[in-house]
């Protein structure tokens, strides 16, 4: 607490520590505001590309038998439209908004892993450029945004077109998962003092659930993409029936991701609605607890719906009925939210300005989309309209209504944050009405086109089938909608120059992001306020002034560290000071080298890809090195009297949570692989396990026992460190690293010596992939341990900075878990069933 210093001087001091470098060095910035804005600007550019592709599709379908676009190009256009909109616009855009807003709403200065956010952005940018470049090169994928096999397999798509998708999208997904981990840990561990779970802003609840959904939802597709790329590039058998695979495995992996993806897009947008509506209704949201319950319920139930995308593939009726029921059930938590929003409006004193127009449009369109969703959940109806334009219409009602409309509302609402100015109400209203009318003209009519039987993904149609007029109306409507989007962009562009100054808290909002300057400084808050309720700015409208004057916590910066509070996940009570890394080139370098990996794989230069992968590992290890007590991180552990210790001097910093969350994502990927094993074993029509298992049981068992002993030893070391005993820590770590290396080498030898034929049988392909996965993890564990030993030697880790071995321990535990699960699945299960 400090109330005597000059605020201007304080600002300069903080800016010296937190500010972004200028010129080309700005590429090394890791600040969450900059990264969030970069995500959103890049997402908007991809949105325009995706929109342009949609316009081309609508031009082609405006009249029957139009010769403008050939079938091949048309397939590329709709594939890229879907892929760009889903992967390069929708998810990054909402993640970008969350990256920008969450620390400000939580009363923090940054996210807890700023370099990870920056890395995520570069992965997204480079992955997106790789994917979109395929269009310019005439090599775009043409198998639909879901890339079903066998169409996307080597036999039917022999060029590199699907590889652009598989590699580019996987790259982008790394970004999404990184963002998910970052957001989850930040929300749980860096809230303002006193911001307990029951006081957390609703938007943070939505983003917390979304982040966890990303962590659990994206890995199945990452695995699917790896398997399909292995099949295409190395000839492994996973999806080829003749070799014991099954194309339906791809559909399961894709939709295990694909359906939660819809809610990953929707929930942040619903979070925007739950944030804005109370502000414009001028009262707190009705049913805070109900909304939290609905968000959690939606997050879980949305994972139980994936099979409704597969109702026509021949699943038993009872199985379909389970997923039909679950698909209807998910409407319940969504309905709770809609009723809570309506009740907030009903009991409030709503102001109908531009953001509210977009929210009203959202309510109308999304509810309509939800209702057609319930129709599609009915299996017989789904059979009738499957693969028709009805589904296209439903999907756009849900996605555009459920995401784009709230997003635009949010952008209008938070524009003063980006510019300090307000947009034009006149242009904003024109933009809304053109978009709303154009959207409904396009997609409402498309329901009828679908019911009249017009299939999706056909590049043209004959006259006289009754599809001419509705298609023409849809095409005209799409251009009206495009005019609306242009109007919105024009308004946003012009407001930076002509918009009137916003002033403090222009909407009289309740949440902490409006307690910053407009636009905010790089550190958000000079001093970090305590939170005494759900609506800090309604409870204390002068809070922003007090914050700017340095009257709250952590207002000292002469130590040169970037700091924010580390808090208890439940109560929000302060536990430690999290010190954050500063600007760094490492995220950009890592992403660049990873781009080289992708491009090498795309061109079949596997040796170069291997070298680049090793270089990536080297950069990431360097990244992990500059942490904790490192001279470039926080060598000085002193804090102000009464303040808690730095997180790196405790046993429970954000890195521990970050590693845990990352391993959750990793575990989902691994269990998806194990699912593939059991799935093919039970379902694939030509699955043929060999008479004699190729796995050497005893050597594998001994290798596992060695791994178990190492992990137990590591636990013992960490336990002793917790008790403050540093004696023999370095020697112990070196020993365990050496033993770990031996264990990994042994595993490698087993893998190499096995007579596997992964190109001939799915059975062998899955064994090779699972063991390869194990080997990769078991090889990294001793490397991490050796680095820890070295850090102990240098005095960077020890009883005064005991935190890092506990982080590495989680990796070892994970290796142990996946080893024994694999042993059960690959060795014991086949033997148990007599195969």
């Amino acid at each position, binding site marked *: 607490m400090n109330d005597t210093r000059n605020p201007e001087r304080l600002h300069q001091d903080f800016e010296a520590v937190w500010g972004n470098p200028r010129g080309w060095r700005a590429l090394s910035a890791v600040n969450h505001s900059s990264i969030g804005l970069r995500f959103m600007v890049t997402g908007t550019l991809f949105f325009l590309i995706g929109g342009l592709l949609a316009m081309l599709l609508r031009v082609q379908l405006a009249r029957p038998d139009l010769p403008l676009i050939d079938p091949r190009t048309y397939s590329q256009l709709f594939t890229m439209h879907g892929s760009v909109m889903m992967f390069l616009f929708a998810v990054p855009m909402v993640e970008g908004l969350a990256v920008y807003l969450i620390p400000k709403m939580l009363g923090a200065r940054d996210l807890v892993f700023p370099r990870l956010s920056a890395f995520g952005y570069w992965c997204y940018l480079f992955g997106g450029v790789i994917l979109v470049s395929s269009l310019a090169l005439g090599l775009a994928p043409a198998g639909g945004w879901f890339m079903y096999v066998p169409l996307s397999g080597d036999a039917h798509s022999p060029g590199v077109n699907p590889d652009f998708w598989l590699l580019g999208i996987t790259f982008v997904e790394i970004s999404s998962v990184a963002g998910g981990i970052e957001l989850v840990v930040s929300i749980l561990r860096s809230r303002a003092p006193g911001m*307990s*779970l*029951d006081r957390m802003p609703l938007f943070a609840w939505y983003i917390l659930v979304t982040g966890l959904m990303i962590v659990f939802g994206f890995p199945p597709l990452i695995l699917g993409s790896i398997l399909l790329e292995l099949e295409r590039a190395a000839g492994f058998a996973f999806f080829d029936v003749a070799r014991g695979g099954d194309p339906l495995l791809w559909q399961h992996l894709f939709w295990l991701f694909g359906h939660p993806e819809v809610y990953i897009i929707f929930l942040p947008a619903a979070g925007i609605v739950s944030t804005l509506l109370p502000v414009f209704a001028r009262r707190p949201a009705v049913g805070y*607890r109900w909304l*939290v*319950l609905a968000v*959690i*319920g939606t997050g*879980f*139930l949305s*994972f*139980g719906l994936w*099979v409704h995308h597969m109702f026509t593939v021949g699943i*038993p*009726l*009872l*199985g379909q*009925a*389970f997923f*039909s*029921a*679950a698909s209807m*059930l998910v409407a*319940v*938590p969504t309905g709770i939210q809609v009723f809570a929003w309506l009740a907030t409006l009903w009991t409030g004193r709503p102001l109908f300005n531009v953001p509210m127009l977009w929210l009203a449009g959202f309510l109308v369109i999304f509810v309509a989309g939800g209702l057609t969703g319930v129709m599609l959940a009915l299996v017989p109806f789904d059979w009738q309209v499957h693969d028709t334009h009805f589904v296209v219409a439903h999907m756009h009602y849900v996605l555009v209504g459920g995401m784009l409309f709230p997003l635009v509302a949010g952008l209008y609402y938070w524009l003063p944050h980006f510019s300090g100015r307000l947009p034009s109400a006149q242009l904003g209203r024109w933009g809304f009405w053109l978009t709303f009318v154009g959207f409904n003209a396009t997609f409402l009519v498309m329901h009828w086109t679908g019911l009249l039987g017009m299939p999706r993904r056909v590049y043209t149609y004959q006259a006289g089938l009754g599809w001419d007029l509705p298609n023409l109306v849809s095409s005209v409507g799409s251009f009206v909608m495009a005019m609306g989007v242009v109007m919105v962009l024009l308004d946003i562009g012009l407001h930076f120059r002509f918009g009137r100054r916003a002033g403090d808290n222009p909407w009289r909002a309740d949440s902490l992001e409006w307690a910053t300057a407009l636009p905010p400084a790089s550190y958000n808050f000079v001093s970090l306020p305590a939170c005494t309720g759900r609506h800090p700015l309604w409870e204390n409208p002068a809070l922003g002034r007090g914050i700017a004057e340095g009257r709250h916590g952590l207002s000292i910066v002469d130590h040169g560290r970037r700091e924010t509070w580390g808090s208890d*996940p*439940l*109560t*929000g009570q302060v536990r430690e000071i999290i010190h954050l890394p500063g600007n760094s080139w490492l995220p950009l370098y890592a992403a660049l080298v990873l781009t080289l990996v992708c491009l090498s794989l795309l061109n079949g230069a596997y040796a170069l890809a291997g070298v680049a992968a090793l270089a990536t590992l080297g950069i990431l290890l360097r990244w992990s090195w500059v942490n904790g007590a490192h001279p470039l991180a926080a060598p000085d552990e002193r804090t102000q009297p009464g303040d808690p210790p730095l997180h790196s001097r405790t046993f429970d910093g954000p890195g521990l949570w970050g590693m845990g969350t990352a391993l959750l994502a990793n575990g989902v990927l691994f269990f998806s692989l194990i699912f593939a094993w059991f799935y093919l074993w*039970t*379902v694939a029509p030509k699955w043929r396990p060999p008479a004699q298992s190729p796995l050497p049981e005893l050597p594998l068992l001994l290798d596992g026992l060695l791994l178990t002993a190492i992990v137990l030893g590591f636990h013992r070391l960490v336990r002793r460190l917790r008790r403050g005993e540093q004696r023999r820590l370095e020697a112990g770590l070196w020993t365990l690293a050496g033993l770990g290396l031996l264990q990994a080498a042994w595993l490698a030898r087993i893998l190499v010596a096995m007579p596997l034929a992964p190109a001939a049988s799915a059975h062998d392909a899955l064994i090779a992939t699972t063991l390869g996965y194990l080997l990769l993890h078991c090889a990294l564990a001793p490397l991490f341990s050796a680095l820890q030993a070295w850090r102990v030697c240098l005095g960077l880790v020890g009883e005064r900075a005991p935190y890092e071995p506990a982080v590495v321990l989680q990796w070892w535990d994970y290796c142990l878990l996946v080893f024994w699960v694999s042993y059960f699945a690959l060795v014991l299960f086949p033997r148990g069933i007599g195969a």
Partner: protein
Amino acid sequence: MRPGHPLQLALGLIVWSLWLVAVYAGLSLGCLSVRPDAGLGVGSWLNELLGLLTLLTAAWLFGCAWRLWRTPPPVLAARRFVVRVGAWVHLLAAVATLFVGLPIMALPPCL
């Protein structure tokens, strides 16, 4: 797990997720391994097994919800919040289990 533990906010629906995986996998495995006689309809051993699992899971979830409702309100507001929302999460999970499991009483397993 203690009533005020934050994981109560997810526990019920985690159990629901596991139940869904178990009935879907159980149905597939049952139909592939020991396919019940088609003439038995919904009276097959597979329907009975899946139905029993559904009832047991729902009963457990209702029990958890009831236990949380009956918990004396903790002093700490954040824990009170967890207990209340956790009870509703368990109740939602129980209802979801029964609703999604309802077709077990109406459809034969392997058609």
